[in-house]
């Protein structure tokens, strides 16, 4: 499991690693907002390329990343698409605004080119958001994360919660594996093929109790140590991880100011000034051919009441 963790605790050596925590969090938040705000393939593609370039520039250990990437493609890409095609094959009509069948299997099972475009766009969106998360996780240490959140004017107690939780994850993962191994040594079978669901639930409960009690047992010690160092006495605090801005920081800050303005303009433009009739732009659907569908008409359980 330790190989699977991509969390970074040691400050790295590349330019992106050396940036201040505030810049990293700022860029991460802006990229996440931008990815959420757009459904346009022409905007999503550059937003997807930048985080991938950032990941490559940091020269990470690729093994866990490839595993995560494969996992993501299987769950979101393949299983998600199959489920979508089975449950609501005409989703393209709702979001892209047209209906062109390219393959008909049965009455309820067909493939339209619009649905495929919808799948492609949402998948690109997921991949872009995945790449942003990975890039952020790779370049940020817990204390940088906390200092960056406090730069965004979050109350510092919340920042401490985030950094403390982020820092405790490997400890808890280790304890979890220890407890699971010792339980398995005493004959608790957790393999899904050999035990029934009820038994597994019972065993997991038995495993959770020591994990929860031993983890929460540390609370008092940590809290006392923090109290002794004067935590929570003053309204503000400074951050050890925050340092003077490097050259890369200044460039990134200037870029993020422009980027934020661009996002704001984009949202205003696409939502209010010049709204596109449906959610997604599509290269092979002309603007005048678009049919609008009420979302509530597509819900399967509302059809039962009609």
């Amino acid at each position, binding site marked *: 499991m330790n190989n699977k963790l*991509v969390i970074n605790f040691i400050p790295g050596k590349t330019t992106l690693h050396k940036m201040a925590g505030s810049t990293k969090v700022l860029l991460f938040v802006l990229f996440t907002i931008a990815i959420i705000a757009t459904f346009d393939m022409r905007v999503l593609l550059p937003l997807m390329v930048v985080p991938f370039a950032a990941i490559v520039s940091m020269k990470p250990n690729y093994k866990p990343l490839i595993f995560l990437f494969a996992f993501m493609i299987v769950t979101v890409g393949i299983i998600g698409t199959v489920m979508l095609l089975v449950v609501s094959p005409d*989703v393209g009509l709702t979001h892209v605004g047209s209906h062109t069948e390219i393959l008909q299997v049965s009455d309820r099972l067909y493939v339209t080119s619009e649905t495929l475009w919808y799948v492609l766009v949402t998948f690109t969106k997921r991949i872009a958001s995945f790449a942003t998360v990975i890039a952020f996780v790779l370049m940020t240490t817990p204390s940088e994360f906390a200092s960056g959140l406090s730069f965004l004017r979050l109350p510092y107690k919340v920042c401490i919660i985030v950094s403390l*939780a982020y820092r405790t994850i490997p400890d808890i993962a280790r304890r979890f594996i220890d407890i699971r191994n010792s339980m398995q040594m005493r004959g608790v079978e957790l393999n899904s093929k050999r035990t029934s669901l009820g038994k597994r639930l019972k065993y997991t409960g038995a495993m959770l*109790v020591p994990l929860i009690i031993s983890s929460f047992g540390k609370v008092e010690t940590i*809290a006392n140590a923090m109290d002794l160092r004067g935590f929570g006495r003053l309204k503000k605090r400074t951050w050890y991880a925050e340092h003077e801005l490097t050259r890369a920081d200044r460039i990134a800050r200037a870029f993020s100011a422009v980027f934020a303005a661009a996002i704001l303009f984009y949202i205003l433009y696409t939502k209010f000034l010049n709204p596109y009739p449906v*959610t997604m732009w599509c290269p092979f659907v002309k603007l005048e051919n678009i049919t609008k569908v009420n979302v509530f008409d597509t819900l399967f359980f509302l059809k039962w009441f009609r």
Partner: protein
Amino acid sequence: MENTTVKAKKSIGSLIVGEWNTKTIVAIAIGAALYGVLMVYGGIPIFTNTQLSVAMIIPVVVGGLFGPLPALVCCGVGNVLADLIGGWGMWFDWSIGNAIMAFCVGLLPVYGARITEGIFSVKHAIIYAVCCILGNVIAFGVITPIFSYLLYASDLNITFLQAFAATLGNSAVLIIIGIPILILLAKRYKARSNLSQDKTGEY
């Protein structure tokens, strides 16, 4: 004696917010980390893509000991952390849903189930079960689909199916594992709290 009567008459508002001292903050942080780890590694798969997430126990414990708002923060942060370490991208719709579900689950002290004083009766267990189911339905049946649609343009049919599975799975875990754990915790705290004031010294 005066001290105990003052303690008993806490207003609902202060019960909801909870006490935000250092201990609470550390407990929320550790709870969030536990939630994140269990969310990623501690699931019991039932079908493909659906699993009973054991992580649902954490808001029960945090809510029981510290109140609903700490449970909400714990679950929200925990879910964001789970997204960060799980590496499946940010799903803010589900984070918000989970946070609200945790708030409903963590209402324990508000209706008088004070775990820290060892109070947890059958009545409380029934209210707890109702709260869990209602919280899940509100969080995953209403709030998550709205955000899913607005933020990611997810297909609502699929979101509702997933929400249905999540509601069933979470409620099952919350009730089947949650109630025994609450009884256990209440017993542990009761064993420590049955100290009575020594009156022999008073003449």
